[in-house]
């Protein structure tokens, strides 16, 4: 595996700020980034990446390849929980399994953005439209995860399916991302000229601050947790690797460029810790966030950011030659 990629990833400012956050927790510092600042960072990042993707789409138009990428995105996000749930439910309760399955079927926007920043650093080109895949993959897993858990139980309770779908499709982060994408498409070059400085100049800096917070949050979760079992850690490390495989397969099938194939794989391998928990808290209130959020946020996310990204890029390079 290419040492240069690993170094490029680890010496990237955002990843270093992530380590700084972890370090702060480790030494018992009082450093914290109080709400709603992290929410603001996340709002900004979603808006910026959505808008940038939209303006690019307005130039390139909607290609066949994009349509296929979106079709597979939808499919994979829907199917991941279908395969994960039966396995998970041997180790966890019904609701917990469904919540974990939904988290991993969905995506992690920040992992995606960190991946983009790695590509920029390595000067590997990528298509802005992959942001649309990010938007498409957020919700389906929520629905299929809950459907799986309901099939295996007669106990009704919880939200009716219709309200559930609304919750999944129109949750805040999906809406900001999709909305900004569409606004970017509609306003095109004139909008780009208007918002370019806002969307570009702050991007890396806000990402650094956000990852600093992610480091703080994920490390304190690990430190505080007394529910972290070996099973949980194992799943949190294995699932992303397993999910990366269909990602690589689809990328190869659709003949994506190195950068695009990498981003698509990262989408498959990521796990949601914002949109999915927000939906689960309503749909499956008895699922324990101490399990599914901890897995996605405190184990899978750091794993992906630190080791996963270089690994997936290495695999993609092997594949795309």
């Amino acid at each position: 595996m290419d040492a240069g990629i690993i170094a490029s990833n680890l010496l990237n400012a955002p990843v270093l700020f992530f380590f700084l956050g972890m370090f702060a927790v480790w030494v018992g510092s009082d450093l914290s980034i109080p709400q709603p600042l992290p929410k603001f960072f996340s709002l900004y990042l979603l808006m910026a990446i959505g808008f940038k993707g939209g303006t690019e789409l307005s130039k390139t138009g909607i290609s066949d390849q994009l349509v296929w990428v979106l079709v597979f995105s939808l499919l994979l996000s829907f199917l991941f929980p279908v395969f994960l749930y039966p396995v998970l439910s041997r180790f966890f309760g019904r609701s917990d399994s469904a919540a974990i399955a939904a988290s991993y079927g969905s995506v992690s926007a920040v992992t995606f953005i960190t991946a983009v920043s790695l590509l920029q650093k390595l000067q590997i080109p990528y298509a802005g439209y992959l942001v649309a895949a990010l938007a498409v993959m957020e919700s389906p897993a929520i629905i299929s995860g809950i459907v799986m858990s309901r099939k295996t139980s007669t106990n009704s309770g919880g939200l009716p399916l219709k309200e559930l779908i609304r919750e999944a499709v129109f949750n805040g982060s999906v809406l900001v991302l999709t909305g900004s994408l569409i606004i970017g498409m509609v306003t095109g070059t004139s909008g780009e000229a208007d918002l370019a400085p806002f969307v570009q100049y702050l991007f890396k800096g806000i990402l650094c601050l956000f990852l600093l917070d992610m480091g703080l949050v994920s490390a304190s979760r690990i430190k505080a947790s007394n529910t972290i079992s070996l099973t949980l850690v194992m799943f949190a490390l294995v699932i992303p690797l397993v999910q990366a495989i269909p990602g690589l397969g689809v990328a190869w099938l659709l003949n994506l460029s190195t950068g695009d194939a990498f981003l698509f794989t990262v989408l498959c391998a990521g796990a949601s810790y914002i949109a999915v928990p927000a939906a689960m808290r309503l749909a499956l209130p008895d699922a324990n966030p101490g399990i599914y959020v901890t897995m996605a946020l405190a184990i899978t996310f750091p794993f992906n950011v630190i080791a996963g990204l270089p690994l997936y890029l290495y695999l993609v390079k092997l594949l795309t030659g």
Partner: protein
Amino acid sequence: MQKVKRFEIITPAAALKEIMRSFRERNITGYSVIQDVTGSGDRGWQSGDELSDISKNILIITTTEPGKEHELEETLRPILKRYGGVCMVTDALWLKH
């Protein structure tokens, strides 16, 4: 001053909508909500620093006339069962204005 039963409910923020609906059904129009309550209970420590706000609790204060508290208790019980949280009832005097 008038005697009232003071209700204090602490529960995850996600339960707010349902509780407000149950208040509406019982014609309870006076209540207060404090956001951003953290706490510890059967589900462990809720740090409130999550990105998704899921670990935030709220504190709701409301009142009923003495004698009517049992109805409200029965309404709240299943909600608290699903979402977790506590409800405390105390005697209070209400300053009429």
